[in-house]
């Protein structure tokens, strides 16, 4: 099912932080892809472009200061999700705890399908924010044990407003319930493609894995990019342009697929130039606790191929241009 309707023009000023990044996008080491017709498969990243974290990282834990971690020493708790060499923000905490830098009590919550901090340094109610090099903190509501760590990223742990923390937990619980109701199949109730002047919505779309990033995730992992690829396979998209970028001017580590072109019946972004499609996972519970999408600079970097999904209520894609 799909529906088109005109959308309000979003002031260009709001895009300013994004524009700075988008305008500096450079070519990557992998051939750009134009997906269309019947073939919506994405070839694996060549070995020389598939980097894993390799340099000492820094994590800020409020009250404890900036602590360092060695990526070579970290084992992922979610080895069902991460490929060897990759790990999550949560794994960094577990490593710090193992080294005695912090005291951490945690458990895996099956109802939320994520690891939860019970107590960190004697305090309860922690949450995190993280962004890759060149981004800014985003008020993330993504599971901490699915957010992949890259070299040069910024991570901060802090005591979250109890109301927001509760909303995040509620959002996760809803996702797990939805997934169970759909018998383990990822069906997204609402997908919106939005540009400055156009909006196209799809409803109840089944998403399947395309294993776009086997270098980062285990086979079968579902990512935000799979949403677009599934739409393409269903015939809802005419074309999708992907570009893998390993670096950008002033940003050493990018390593992600950018969606640089998209067209569908009723959605052909008229804006051209340095444009990318950014995504925002949302839902009725969490929406008011997210930053306005137009400010999510780190979504430029947390590209769709690296955002693991459970079963979100909605996902909005926004076409952002210089």
């Amino acid at each position, binding site marked *: 099912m799909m529906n088109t309707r005109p959308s309000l023009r979003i*002031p260009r000023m*709001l895009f300013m932080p994004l524009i700075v990044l988008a305008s500096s996008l450079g070519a990557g080491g992998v051939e750009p892809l134009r997906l269309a017709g019947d073939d919506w498969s994405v070839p694996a990243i060549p070995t020389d472009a598939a980097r894993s974290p390799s340099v000492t990282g820094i994590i800020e834990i409020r009250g404890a200061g900036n602590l360092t971690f060695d990526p070579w020493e970290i084992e992922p708790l979610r080895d069902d999700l991460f490929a060897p060499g990759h790990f999550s923000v949560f794994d960094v905490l577990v490593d710090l705890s193992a080294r005695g830098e912090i005291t951490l009590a945690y458990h895996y919550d099956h109802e939320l399908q994520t690891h939860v901090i019970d107590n960190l340094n004697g305090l309860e109610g922690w949450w995190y924010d993280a962004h890759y090099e060149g981004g800014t*903190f985003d008020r993330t509501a993504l599971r901490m044990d699915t957010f992949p760590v890259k070299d040069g990223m910024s991570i901060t742990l*802090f005591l979250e407003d109890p109301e927001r923390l509760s909303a995040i937990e509620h959002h996760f619980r809803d996702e797990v319930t939805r997934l169970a109701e759909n018998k383990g199949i990822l069906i997204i109730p609402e997908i919106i493609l939005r540009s400055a002047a156009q909006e196209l919505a799809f409803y109840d779309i089944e998403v399947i894995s395309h294993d776009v990033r086997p270098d980062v995730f285990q086979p079968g992992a579902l990512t935000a990019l799979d949403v677009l690829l599934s739409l393409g396979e269903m015939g809802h998209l005419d074309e999708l342009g992907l570009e893998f970028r390993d670096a950008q001017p002033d940003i050493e580590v990018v390593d992600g697929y950018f969606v640089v072109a998209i067209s569908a019946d009723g959605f052909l972004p008229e804006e051209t130039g340095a444009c990318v499609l950014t995504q925002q996972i949302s839902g009725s519970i969490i929406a008011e606790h997210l930053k306005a999408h137009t400010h999510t600079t780190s979504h430029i970097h947390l590209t769709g191929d690296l955002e693991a999904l459970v079963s979100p209520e909605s996902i909005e894609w926004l076409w952002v241009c210089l």
Partner: protein
Amino acid sequence: MTWIILANAKKRRARVAMTVAGIAIGVATLFALLALSAGIEQALDREIGAMGANILLLPEGCPYELTLALMQGSDAFEHIPTDVLPDVRSVADVAVAAPVAVGKAKINGQLTSLYGATDEILAVRSWGIDTFSGAIVGSDAAEKLGVAEGDRLTLRLYANEEIVIDAVLEPTYGRDDTFVFVPLAVAQRILGLGEQLSAILVRTRSVTATATTQSTLGRMSDIQAVPPSDVFERLMELFATVKQTLILITGIAIVAGVLTTMNTMTMAVYERKKEIGILRALGSTKVNVFRLFVTESLVLSLVGGVAGVILGFVATQFLPQSSGFGLEATPVFSFLHVVICLLVAIVVGVASSLYPAMSAARTQPIKILREL
């Protein structure tokens, strides 16, 4: 003519009341929009002015979000290292560089904005206080926490501390009323910021030196130098787009008012053909009849306009007083807004009466009298 208008209104009370209500709702929406917009502009201007700085030194990131966080007393997660302070103070035209650290902490068990600052804050704020060693509590915060000068506050987040209240501020009618100001080092410990700052408020030796000082400060690494006036303008631009949408909605309400009134007047012409025929037979000219219906419509619109202004005033008292930027904005009422609303009502009256009035004026008396 007045007698005819009053008699007609009395005879068709329900329809007249509904027409007046239709216009009143459109005008009330407009009046409330004008009052709230002016209130938001005033609140932003007041809050940005109240910071007392010519230049804000902020961490890297969106300057508007960071400034709003500073005004709201929230932690924006991006910070400035304290060691940039000596470099900032060494810039020729920097008269005051007041480092601040803000965020929400549990104060006496209640989540409250904590504002850490040094003595330099006294040079950029106009509180009439000379010393700053304990806590200075905003008037609203003092009321919320139930504290007074000399009382002790318990601060808790990443550390626990107690501090004595030096003073409770007189109401400033801005966000300062909601803050608890404490020495910078205390705030940094409570907020777990270590040696980091949320911002540095800079006052230059003269206003003319602002641009060059901003340029010099802007070249320093890890920070951005932003004039508060720029932030104000950008936020107002942002608000303008929201306002345009609201004006569009108001316009639709007003157009609905025009159509309602036009419908009423057209029906009135149809129902009062006999009356029009007699008037014409008794010597009224086409112009007289035209004027009668225009005047009648104008009277209805003006009554609707006045009712709308009153309704709009009442409505604004019940609307949440927030600007959407997280700042409290009290609606601002002015005589100009009343004039604009009444002018709109008059335009509605005239626009909606032209067709029915012309239709009435064209009525052939002989034709009507034959039908009697």
